[in-house]
């Protein structure tokens, strides 16, 4: 394998891992605050379709990005209402959100399938992008990928170094104690859910405006679910999330690698790889029940109401 191919693979790996990273960052914050939102797939698709339609009609890609984030937040607000205010089962509500989001996006997007759009183009940073091997991967991406680096840094700082991170984790670990300390548990959780929605919407916009600038039904192809597995893979730690997202990005471009190496494997078999990898990773990491229990936020998925 020559250097050029390797550099291309690394480039594609980051591109492919970016939507996963974005969704997973949002879900991480959400789960750290104790809320399990299984609706990532639905929010992502809704964000993708809204971003695409807005960008195509207004000719402004950034307006598309902005509104797709708003779209994700809108759906996550629905989730917050039903799961946090009405205290419905979070698993069921998340599933409902996914089914609803998938249906809504296909319904809205039916007239827009296959329309061409000039999406975000790669923007190479001079000098830096000509570093061998990693130059292309880190410095010749499109603007949304750079944005994902910034967002990762922000989330990592917030979780590891800031007071906000402490508050979120306090609420997720022990909502009763956090509430007794005077923290507004429900409000923190709602904001975390909204943040997750915005990130999922952004990931959707990345898919429909940069990764493959078009709209197709179910174009996220399970990335929302893979991101949920990623959070487990990362044991709720932010640096491992970054690693995991790119590893999964690599798994989903392996068909390119196989082509590059001249292997003839049917594409539908290679398309299974990210899903198989997800299962294997889940198996490897969940085998040790104690570990999961130690790292998972204690109140994850449990309803909580003030004054109980």
């Amino acid at each position, binding site marked *: 394998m020559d250097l050029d191919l390797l550099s291309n693979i690394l480039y594609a790996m980051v591109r492919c891992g970016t939507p996963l990273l974005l969704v997973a960052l949002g879900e991480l914050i959400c789960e750290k605050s104790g809320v399990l939102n299984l609706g990532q797939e639905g929010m992502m698709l809704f964000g993708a379709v809204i971003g695409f339609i807005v960008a195509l009609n207004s000719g402004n890609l950034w307006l598309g990005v902005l509104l797709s984030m708003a779209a994700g937040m809108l759906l996550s607000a629905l989730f917050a209402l039903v799961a946090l205010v009405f205290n419905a089962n979070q698993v069921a509500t998340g599933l409902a959100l996914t089914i609803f989001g998938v249906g809504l996006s296909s319904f809205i997007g039916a007239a827009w399938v296959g329309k061409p759009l000039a999406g975000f183009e790669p923007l190479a940073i001079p000098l830096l992008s000509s570093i061998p091997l990693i130059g292309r991967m880190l410095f010749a991406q499109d603007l949304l990928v750079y944005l994902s680096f910034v967002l990762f840094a922000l989330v990592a700082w917030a979780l590891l170094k800031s007071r906000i991170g402490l508050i979120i984790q306090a609420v997720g670990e022990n909502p009763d104690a956090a509430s007794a300390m005077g923290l507004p548990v429900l409000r923190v959780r709602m904001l975390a859910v909204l943040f997750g929605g915005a990130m999922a919407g952004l990931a959707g916009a990345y898919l429909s405006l940069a990764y493959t600038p078009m709209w197709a039904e179910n174009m996220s192809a*399970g990335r929302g679910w893979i991101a949920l597995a990623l959070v487990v893979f990362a044991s709720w730690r932010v640096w491992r999330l970054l690693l995991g997202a790119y590893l999964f990005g690599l798994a989903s471009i392996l068909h390119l690698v196989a082509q590059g190496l001249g292997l003839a494997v049917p594409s*539908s078999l290679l398309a299974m790889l990210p899903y198989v990898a997800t299962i294997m990773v889940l198996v490897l990491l969940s085998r040790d029940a104690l570990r999961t229990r130690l790292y998972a936020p204690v109140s994850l998925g449990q309803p909580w109401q003030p004054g109980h």
Partner: protein
Amino acid sequence: MLLSLEPRGQQSRVMLWCSPLLAAGLTLACGSLLFMLLGHPPLLTLHTLLIAPISDFYGLGEWLVKTLPILLCALGLAVAYQARIWNIGAEGQLLLGALAGSALAVNLIDMQSRWALVLVLCGGTLAGAAWAGLTAWLRTRFNANEILTSIMLNYIALNLLLFCVHGPLKDPAGFNFPESAMFGDASRLPLLSEEGRAHAGVYFALLALIAVWVLLQRSFVGFQIKVLGLDQRAAGFVGFRHKRLIWLALLISGGLAGLAGACEVSGPIGQLVPQVSPGYGYAAITVAFLGRLNPIGILFSSLLMALLYLGGEHAQMSLNLPQAITQLFQGMMLFFLLACDVLILYRPRLKLHWTRRAPVATTVGAL
């Protein structure tokens, strides 16, 4: 004015059954609003969606054809959900059932005896059960979250199916279309009547309905499954073997979904095609919840869901509305159901005046 929720102290049995009806009603109301916004007259659209498709004999037959796979999948899911095993994999289990059934049927094309059909259906059922068994094994042996593994297995099953219709199972005389050969007559489900496509799979569905009802409502195993779902620790204390129950719930769940898949390919379709299921396995999730995980409730909610599927096709043809309207309604219904379920445990109270919350008493100068 302020609407507030007041705990009832116990669950309301009336609301338990009114909430699905309320959810269906709200979905229709929201749907009408949506149609109005899109410039379609709401009453006419609802008529096209819900009444026109089943206003003739052929339509009634199609209704049964669509109900069957949804009902079978949802019955299976109900067993799993009663145990709080979140099996989202009915879609994949259905596809695997269809795939295995087809693989058998294609190799039995020349067989004349009715055993061919038996083999196809059994093969499908077993394959569905095995696919769910994979989830059960990952859960019981490796403690892997069954939601994520079963979803991933759905995608894997779909790709496996695509691989097979493009490769090993492709009809050699099929002009390179990704389809299997048409099955032999012996491995096709008999039709119920000369007209329409309604087929003998209906009997299996009725049988499954009764079996699941007996299992959940009248058997000790069903009781164990429910206890496991309500409180896993309690189930452990009385000595129920929870791993065995997880296996059982998932195998039943997968077997029924697999049977649904085998019935689809040997019934109305007659060959393996890439689009075996327009998301029946996902629809079944909504159906199971809407039917309150109760077999009788599920019968009615699967009829409703099948009607939505038919209506979606009908609305696409006559009103040019996207067919995704079916999924949109599915999602809305599940959302409304979960929101309405708050009324089971809480009573809405309308306060006519803002009342300032009484200040919380604090002690000053003492611990």
